């Protein structure tokens, strides 16, 4: 089975604050890491390979330093990786990201199963998976919580829905986004890390894209546009309750009664 996992580099923390006066984002720390949700996708890929044989490839789109996540994936057991990077891809929203990723995937090879995380911890849209599937014209199943089995030319999975579990058979090639119930990701192996430190990766830039229409990538290719960023606002009425615990219990009780949470 040929498996591909899409992984993204995200900031090490999403603890950002907006300076109320200037509107500038204040970020604490500049370290980055693999999107935690993608660890589950990668683990799913590695387990599929262990059971059915084949290869696990990883791909990421981002700035040059995003290649670090490919090496993280190698240390966990991925076989090979590709980085898609170009200034022309900067400023991409979901659509432009998905276009670039799908073009990069075509370039990288043909795969039976493409795995994505449920969402990321920065952009946090959970939209890239299904958009990539659409652009590759392959079926997609999101919220996969269990892989039942792979068969000749298809895979059977459980999709987590609000009230029930749907068991779905998807024909290869297909794209799955997996949730955190699917499995526990393994830790990177030190030995593997040493062995793969200098591993070659494929690097694709704009000139490697099949579709060379610049208008479709990066900022220009992004239909959405972020107008402004601001801190969350709260507009709540506030009352401070103080006193002995007996008085406080009485006050809470009275308020709950007034608001009809307690009968009588």
């Amino acid at each position, binding site marked *: 089975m040929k498996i591909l996992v899409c992984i993204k580099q995200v*900031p090490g923390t999403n603890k950002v604050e907006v300076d109320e006066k200037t509107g*500038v*984002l204040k970020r604490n720390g500049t370290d*980055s890491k693999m999107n935690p949700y993608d660890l589950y996708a990668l683990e799913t890929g590695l387990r599929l390979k262990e059971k059915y044989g084949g290869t696990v490839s990883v791909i990421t789109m981002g700035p*040059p*330093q*995003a290649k670090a996540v490919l090496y993280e994936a190698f240390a966990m057991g991925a076989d090979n990786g590709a980085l898609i990077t170009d*200034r022309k891809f*900067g*400023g991409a*929203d979901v*659509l432009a990201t998905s276009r670039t990723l799908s073009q990069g995937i075509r370039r990288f090879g043909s795969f039976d199963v493409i795995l994505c995380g449920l969402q990321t911890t*920065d952009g*946090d*849209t*959970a*939209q890239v*998976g*299904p*958009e990539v599937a*659409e652009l590759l014209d392959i*079926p*997609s*199943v*999101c*919220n996969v919580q269990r892989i039942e089995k792979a068969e000749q030319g298809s895979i059977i999975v459980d999709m987590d*829905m609000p009230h*029930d*579990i*749907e*068991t*779905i058979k*998807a*024909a290869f090639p*297909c794209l799955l986004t997996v949730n955190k119930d699917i499995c526990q990701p393994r830790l990177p192996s030190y030995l593997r890390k040493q062995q793969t430190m200098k591993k070659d990766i494929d690097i694709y830039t704009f000139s490697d894209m099949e579709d060379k229409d610049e208008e479709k990538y*990066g*900022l220009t290719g*992004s239909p*959405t*546009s*972020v*107008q402004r*960023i601001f*801190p*969350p606002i*709260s507009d709540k*009425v*506030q*009352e*401070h*309750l103080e006193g002995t*615990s*007996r008085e406080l*219990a009485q006050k*809470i009780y009275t*308020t*709950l009664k007034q*608001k009809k*949470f*307690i009968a009588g």
Partner: protein
Amino acid sequence: MAKLLIHQEKITDAKALAMICPFGAMQEKDGRLSINAGCRMCRLCEKKGPKGAIEYVEDKKAPQIDKTKWRGIAVYVDHVDGSIHPVTYELLGKAKELAGKIKQPVYALFIGSGIKHKAEELLHYGADKVYICDKSQLEYFKIEAYTSVFEEFITKIKPAAILVGATPVGRQLAPRVAARFGTGLTADCTILDIKENTDLVQIRPAFGGNIMAEILTPNTRPQMATVRYKIMDAPKWSDTATGTVHELAISDEKLKSRIQVLGVTKKPKEKTIDGADVIVVAGRGIKKKDDLKMLEELADLLGGQTASTRPLVEAGWMDPKKQIGLSGRTVRPKLIITCGVSGSVQFVAGMNHADTIFAINNDPKAAIFKTANYAVKADIYDVIPELIQKIKTGGKAL
């Protein structure tokens, strides 16, 4: 293609300028600044940096589309076997409000099998036209078939904007549709407004609720947005229904799918916090697992459920399904009482839409007090037993 020009000579402190970039896309090396592929073109560096240091140049103006060709606000009807998800009504309410501002109609798109008899109901919530595609092939949610029906609808009706509930179905269907039309999709909007030129003003939290972003889809139609359940207010059921129901035709060829639904297993009915009217939340102020009983008792007395912050789930004291917050559930109960919860942004993001918020914390500086309507400075171990007693005895003095 638009780009940023760096005027190094106008930069006095390259390091400080690099810090402005929320995406870490600016790098300083030997006093010189460069911008890498991490740049999202948010243009903060242009606005907030030294005047003229970063220049934004757009070398080609994209041709403007004719926005008058796209009219009306459409809502995707989320349902399970014909039982309509309440997020649909909330979105119809919002759509009605937006459509009123631009004097355009509200549409509803209803896809499924054996659902016809439910279409009427949508008219009572403000839909002007309900488009229904009722076919046996659409019995289960099959993403390719549903996307094709959506495509038919958009091609035929040309709505200016489409609102989709951010349910497990909506969250996978909307992106496929958006990609098919090469249009923008804004995820999890919490505030929606519309301009006269029908541009949808979409506001959504990002970075886990730490910041809010205002997003436009200025030159593409249809505009698409997903909205989570319990964010918008549901309209009242109205007696009069002036709208009409129309059938949306589609060829069987387009309903073909490469996925097959082999079976559907009902999940065991568990008490979910998602729909609870009253929630009592345990935070790390709870010292041991056994003490949760006290909160369970309070929740029972109020006819509600217990829930918790993440550390208690991590400690194995609470079911992960009962975690509120960014990486847990979003709830919008009528009443929430937080007990020993500090009020981290990640937690607050999942509950700040509750109607009434009581926070009990013994630290007067606790952040949760900024979110609370009733800030109760007290030790939970003192006040909760008292409160339980009060409720049990009907508030009479003992």
